[in-house]
């Protein structure tokens, strides 16, 4: 690894002068480009970034391409085609450090909904000539294909967190990206809990922090954009949504089967809720299920037993 930015009590100026700056590459797989845009959105810091790293490959921003190897690769998107499955191997081979950015790269993204269905049927419905489509039957995270050094969760990622990860990389320290619940950030901000005080279903207690508890701050339930938190326990939350907040199983499936549908913890929970169907006289209602907290004026939950 390059020594640039290694914090020492002296000689930092000297070492930056001698060593070439680390090479940064940004790669895109199956994704919406939103996470790369988060990087471009760091307007005030882009100049500072360009001074510290050589932006060697970033097609969204510049057509300049410098050959690998790269010191830091940021990878956006999931693997959904045979070509991508091959290309991620090449990216890994050329990257000293590989960081995935976003829900697609870290969990498979919204396109992992294909994992629950028949992709061939989708292609038949969507394309005039499905025979030209070469696609995998699943959308999988980067970690299913190559070793990943750090996963930055979120749909989209938070640009402050991205800068934090890059700064940490440059200065050889741990990134401050806590894996705790959205609830902690919610409480740090002094928000009134929408579950407890409004009866609005919220995924915050099982969701990884990073957004700054954005939705609860606007009286909405958390949608789980940042994927599962460390040590997430989804079953009792599902139970509470149903028994105390009047949510039905469609609400729960929609909540867990989202941008992070294939994250193992959320996947298990949405399947558990769905499979509860066969045994219970409690069918999944046929309706377009609203996401959590879409109706803050819905009838309030009743007090606990």
């Amino acid at each position, binding site marked *: 690894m390059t020594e640039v930015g290694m914090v020492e009590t002296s000689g930092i100026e000297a070492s930056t002068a001698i060593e070439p700056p680390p090479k940064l590459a940004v790669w895109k797989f199956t994704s919406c480009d939103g996470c790369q845009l988060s990087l471009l959105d760091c307007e005030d810091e882009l100049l500072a970034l360009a001074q510290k790293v050589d932006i060697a490959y970033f097609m969204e921003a510049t057509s300049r391409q410098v050959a690998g190897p790269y010191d830091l690769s940021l990878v956006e998107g999931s693997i959904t085609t045979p070509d991508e499955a091959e290309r991620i191997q090449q990216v890994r081979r050329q990257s000293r450090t590989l960081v995935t950015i976003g829900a697609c790269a870290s969990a498979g993204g919204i396109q992992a909904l294909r994992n629950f269905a028949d992709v061939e049927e989708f292609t038949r419905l969507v394309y005039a000539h499905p025979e030209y489509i070469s696609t995998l039957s699943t959308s999988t995270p980067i970690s299913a294909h190559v070793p990943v050094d750090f996963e930055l969760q979120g749909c989209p990622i938070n640009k402050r967190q991205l800068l934090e990860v890059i700064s940490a990389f440059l200065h050889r320290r741990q990134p401050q990206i806590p894996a*705790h619940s959205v609830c902690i950030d919610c409480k740090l901000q002094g928000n009134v809990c929408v579950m407890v*005080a409004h009866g609005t279903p919220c995924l915050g207690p099982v969701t990884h922090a990073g957004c700054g508890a954005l939705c609860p701050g606007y009286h909405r339930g958390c949608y789980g954009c940042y994927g599962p938190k460390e040590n997430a326990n989804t079953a009792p939350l599902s139970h509470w949504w149903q028994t105390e907040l009047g949510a039905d199983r469609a609400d729960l499936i929609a909540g867990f089967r989202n941008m992070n549908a294939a994250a193992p913890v959320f996947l298990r929970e949405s399947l558990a809720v769905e499979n509860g169907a066969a045994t219970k006289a409690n069918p999944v209602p046929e309706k377009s299920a609203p996401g959590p907290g879409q109706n803050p004026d819905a009838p309030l939950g009743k007090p606990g037993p």
Partner: protein
Amino acid sequence: MVTPMATEKSPPRILAAADLDLLIQALRSAGYRVVGPVLADQAIVYDEIAGADDLPQGWTDEQEKGFYRLRRRHDPAYFGYAVGPHSWKKYLHPPRRQVWRAHQSNGNLEIELPAEDSQATAFLGVRSCELHAIAIQDRVFLTGRYPNGSYQNRRQKVFTVSVNCTSAAATCFCQSMNTGPAVDLDCDLEMTEIVNAGEHYFLVRSGSDSGEAILKQLPLLPATADQTEGEAAAIDNAVQQMKNGPRSFDSSDLQSLLYRNYDSPAWDQVADRCLSCANCTMACPTCFCTTVEDTTDLSGQHAERWERWDSCFTGDFSHVHGGAIRPGTRSRYRQWLTHKLATWIDQFGSSGCVGCGRCIAWCPVGIDLTEEVKRIRELEQS
């Protein structure tokens, strides 16, 4: 157990409810930022207030496990609620605080301490359990070998106006923890709000010279014997509500109960239901744990250290080389309950729980500390 002795308070005098604003203005004129209860986002929270109009007059709260709703009262009481999602901890021990920042230029490292918020603050409407919670954090932060100067700086500039509770929420159990509902600790002013049949007034007492100096500026009348008896009866109402409520329990042997039951099956049972989301510790007025986050900017010329609330429910909390010492919810919940009710006594000389019920109401899946204690007891006996 430490039972701090309160200094003798002045005899009670009567402040008409219509004159409550004069008290707030007197505090403001004396240079205090006044913080107290306000309505926000369908709850009663603590925030800065400019006058009596900002108070949640005529509102109360209905609370149960995992449940909180604002309700209209049938009277114009100003302090007719119990405790809400916030506690005074947010002022005395703020959620985030910069500890230092450092800059580097020409090879020199310069470390700067941020200026501490030095604003004198009056807390209006501090309940007895909350005075106990502040006293507990005082012992945590100000006694022992490493007093916390930052906390001390804020703490010494606080003026407390306490309020006796005359009704309790269903989640309250201060009566079981011997921390209320009657104010029994030091404060600058103590008030009891009385609303009945067309009458609305406060009995006020001073507990310090600065408290008395504020009272001197207000139009007060001496309290009659009937009024002091009425006050005692009103506070007794809250005592009876809790005694007859579902959360009344014997707290005298909690320490030995928990020490005998490290391996109780109750811990596995609660681990099935607990989300390890940490809402309980964040809402708790005595939980004091923090972590520090060190960051640098891209240039590497600036670094900052921040302190922020942490919780024994996170994996990072017990992370050492190789992983977390408490990897699962069973050991995390056991740490929380055992610290609150047992090891805290060894550490700081009192329980870490004041019975405010916040952890019960603000647990998003309604886990109730008093029920968990009961379950441990029952499983031990079965």
